[in-house]
């Protein structure tokens, strides 16, 4: 399966070098690649139901415990089929949709790369690897949302989604590392084996919360849901593919993946269920008052994501079964609806609900497709959506603890969904036809193939769901949930509590729909109320936070980066000497095994000369005196080297000092005289700082005497200098033989400095 990823990668780049006649059909080429991948995965369905899961291990950075690990099991299969299957239809649809835009090469590149990243994500059996693919999807989502980058709103929405999902991704990485430290591995298998110790460890709750942060941001859960409606700035194929069928489900995938490791605890059940319920209600509630077609679909997607998260939070086999089925259902109808919305936008030039109407006259096939998809969304028989809703109700009935509350809220949200679905169909397709600029049509078969196939699947699988259950859902269930239950999917469940709830939902939904349609005032007041709620929407909270962040950064920069060179230097030395003093006081060893002596007297005399030269150089106001004193100090040091058996050092020091002096003298005439620039107080302050640094360095020097710089190294050099390198001057042998690489580095530095000086002074100045 790593070859499938490679194929995706290559084909995404290959579109740039296709020959002309094939390049025109690049969407079809990519679609075909997706079909190949889909067939590959579909052909392996029998394997995963019978044999062991397929596992591939490739070494990457074994020293850090990072490896490429790919796993193809039931859960992966569900997502892989969705990614490749819907991917194939999306590319087909994009061929028609993107026709009139510039830069489609770029678009297909991003979309195909996203497809590869998403596939890599679901195939990952190593958490770090999963994180990398996870971030890649966020990143590509950014590029795809901002595809119409000339629109400011698109750029803003893209940034928003990148910040939010990126922030969540980083939190998730921290969580992964935290929990990974418990079992000392990032391999999924090790996590599953060590699940008990992870759940028992102190890191469990923080690790879980951090990972959930990643999940909730990616899957647009409350309170991070607001980026998803913003992301509707993207072209329709992107909304359909990333923001309803695949990427936003990554969070759900991770929950299912980690459910055997982290799931089943009270924290898991309550945190996830709570967030799921809130998201579910938020999504369906706000969907009602939306006026934008894609806005409606975005909020219903949030509702669906909430439902999925809730089901995984409940964490019973029933609920996971429902979740897996609902994944398919939602992908089928929502991808269809997004494609239909894109088609309508293309043909009529608007997505506003109030400007649309009576489209059934112009687009009959579209109407049929959309109606079936909407019925599936509303959960009406005989579509797959009905089956899903029944299972979800069943799962909620059996959920532990707060079953009745969850059930009531679930029914409420589904009532909204029914009303929204009917309202959508009525407003867009029925009623009095509006006048459009040009007469809408449904030319372009590519527009309808994708939605048509998906709706057909909804219908056929709704009537005959058996195979889907045993072939795909059951293996997935086996991975996520420890206990195996039989998955027998049927449309007709018999008269029971669940059927009654369904009937109640439909009845209330229709009532709500009727109220929305007939009582115009009701809907308008509702919209007003919601727009008040919108005015304190999280969107703006986010903008406010980002704004403050920039302000704080500016404030900080102003303080730290003040631009005064000497204060930077001052800060460095003050802190260095403080740290050193601290160390001296903490260690508190003031004894030195050295005695103060002035022998030999001529070295002491030399010391006095150097002191005098240093002080003169520091305080003199004449440039010549300053430079000459500096030279005196340098020559004095070379004499010290000379006396203490470092002949080569002494010679080098003399030569370098001479060269330095010559250069200063050469440049001196061209420089201005010293001016008195600092006040007396400043100089006094600087003197004390310098004195503090100097005295601590004196103490350091005394402490450092006779610290052996690893004697074995020096002994090695001395012993082998003649034997191996045929040289009697050990220092020189070290330089040109033992440590020749260092000398090479040194020569390189000199060359770079010389080149720098040459270039600096060569160029003619522009007068300022």
């Amino acid at each position: 399966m790593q070859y499938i990823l490679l194929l995706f990668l290559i084909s995404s780049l290959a579109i740039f070098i296709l020959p002309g006649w094939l390049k025109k059909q690049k969407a079809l080429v990519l679609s075909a690649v997706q079909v190949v991948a889909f067939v590959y995965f579909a052909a392996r369905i029998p394997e995963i139901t019978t044999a062991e899961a397929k596992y591939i291990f490739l070494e990457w950075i074994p020293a850090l415990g990072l490896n490429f690990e790919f796993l193809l099991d039931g859960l992966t299969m569900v997502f892989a089929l969705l990614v490749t299957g819907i991917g194939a239809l999306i590319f087909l649809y994009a061929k028609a949709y993107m026709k009139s835009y510039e830069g489609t090469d770029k678009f297909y590149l991003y979309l195909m790369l996203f497809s590869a990243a998403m596939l890599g994500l679901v195939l990952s059996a190593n958490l770090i690897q999963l994180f990398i693919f996870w971030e890649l999807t966020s990143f590509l989502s950014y590029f795809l949302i901002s595809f119409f980058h000339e629109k400011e709103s698109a750029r803003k929405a893209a940034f928003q989604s990148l910040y939010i999902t990126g922030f969540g991704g980083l939190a998730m990485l921290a969580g992964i590392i935290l929990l990974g430290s418990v079992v000392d591995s990032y391999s999924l298998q090790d996590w599953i084996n060590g699940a008990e110790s992870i759940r028992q460890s102190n890191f469990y709750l923080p690790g879980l919360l951090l990972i959930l942060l990643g999940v909730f941001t990616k899957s647009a859960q409350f309170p991070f849901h607001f980026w998803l409606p913003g992301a509707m700035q993207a072209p329709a194929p992107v909304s359909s593919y990333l923001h309803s069928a695949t990427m936003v489900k990554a969070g759900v995938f991770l929950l299912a993946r980690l459910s055997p490791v982290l799931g089943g605890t009270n924290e898991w059940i309550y945190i996830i269920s709570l967030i799921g319920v809130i998201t579910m209600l938020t999504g369906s509630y706000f969907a009602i008052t939306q006026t934008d077609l894609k806005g409606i679909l975005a909020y219903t997607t949030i509702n669906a994501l909430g439902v999925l998260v809730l089901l995984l939070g409940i964490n019973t086999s029933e609920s996971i079964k429902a979740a897996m089925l609902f994944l398919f259902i939602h992908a089928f109808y929502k991808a269809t609806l997004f494609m239909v919305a894109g088609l309508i936008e293309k043909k009529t030039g608007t997505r506003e609900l109030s400007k649309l109407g009576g489209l059934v006259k112009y687009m009959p096939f579209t109407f049929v497709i959309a109606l079936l998809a909407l019925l599936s969304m509303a959960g009406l028989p005989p579509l797959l959506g009905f089956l899903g809703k029944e299972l979800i109700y069943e799962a909620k009935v059996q959920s532990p603890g707060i079953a009745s509350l969850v059930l009531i809220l679930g029914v409420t949200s589904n009532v909204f969904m029914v009303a929204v679905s009917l309202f959508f169909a009525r407003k867009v397709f029925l009623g009095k036809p509006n006048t459009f600029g040009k007469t809408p049509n449904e030319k372009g078969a590519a527009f309808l193939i994708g939605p048509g196939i998906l709706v057909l699947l909804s219908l056929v699988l709704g009537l005959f769901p058996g195979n889907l259950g045993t072939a795909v859902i059951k293996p997935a269930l086996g991975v996520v949930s420890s206990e195996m239950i039989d998955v027998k999917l049927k449309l007709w469940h018999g008269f029971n509590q669940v059927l009654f709830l369904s009937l109640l939902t439909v009845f209330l939904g229709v009532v709500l729909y009727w109220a929305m349609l007939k009582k115009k005032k009701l809907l308008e007041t509702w919209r007003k109320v919601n727009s008040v709620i919108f005015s304190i929407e999280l969107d703006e909270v986010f903008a406010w936070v980002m704004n403050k962040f920039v302000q704080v950064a500016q404030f900080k920069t102003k303080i730290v980066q003040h631009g005064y060179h000497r204060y930077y230097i001052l800060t460095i030395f003050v802190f260095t000497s403080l740290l050193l003093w601290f160390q001296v006081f903490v260690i508190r060893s003031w004894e030195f095994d050295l005695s103060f002596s002035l022998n030999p007297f001529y070295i002491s005399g030399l010391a006095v000369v150097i002191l005098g030269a240093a002080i003169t150089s520091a305080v003199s106001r004449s440039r010549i005196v300053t430079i000459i004193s500096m030279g005196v100090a340098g020559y004095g040091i070379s004499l010290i080297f000379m006396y203490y058996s470092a002949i080569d050092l002494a010679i080098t020091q003399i030569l370098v000092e001479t060269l330095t002096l010559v250069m200063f003298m050469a440049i001196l005439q061209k420089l201005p005289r010293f001016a008195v620039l600092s006040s007396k107080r400043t100089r006094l302050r600087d003197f004390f700082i310098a004195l503090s640094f100097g005295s601590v360095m004196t103490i350091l020097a005394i402490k450092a005497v006779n610290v052996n710089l690893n004697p074995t190294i020096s002994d090695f050099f001395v012993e082998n200098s003649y034997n191996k390198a045929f040289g009697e001057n050990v220092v020189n042998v070290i330089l040109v033989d033992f440590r020749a690489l260092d000398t090479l580095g040194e020569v390189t530095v000199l060359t770079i400095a010389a080149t720098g000086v040459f270039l600096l002074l060569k160029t003619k100045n522009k007068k300022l």
Partner: protein
Amino acid sequence: MEIVLAIVVGILYTAGVYLMLRRSILKFIIGLIFMSNATNLLVFLSAGLVSGSPVFVDGEKINAEVMADPLPQALVLTAIVIGLGIVVFTLALKYKFFELTGTDDLDQLKKTDN
């Protein structure tokens, strides 16, 4: 003697830091030279002082007990030459700065453009 030389190191550092805190670039560069000399002396000092016995081996004969440590010497030799490179480069920079702005004052460096 080590203590006297340690004091020399301290004084060299003091002069170096004081000069580096001045506003004149020329003084800053001279401070840099003092700092580099002081550091060389510090490294040299830390190996211990051995007088009158330079690090030469006479053929195969080795008499390591009285010999000075060759390693810090090699380190300091490298440091001296690199120090030269840094000083000259700074000097060139300073010269250019003076040519462009006509001032020696580092506080004028505040502005990044114009």
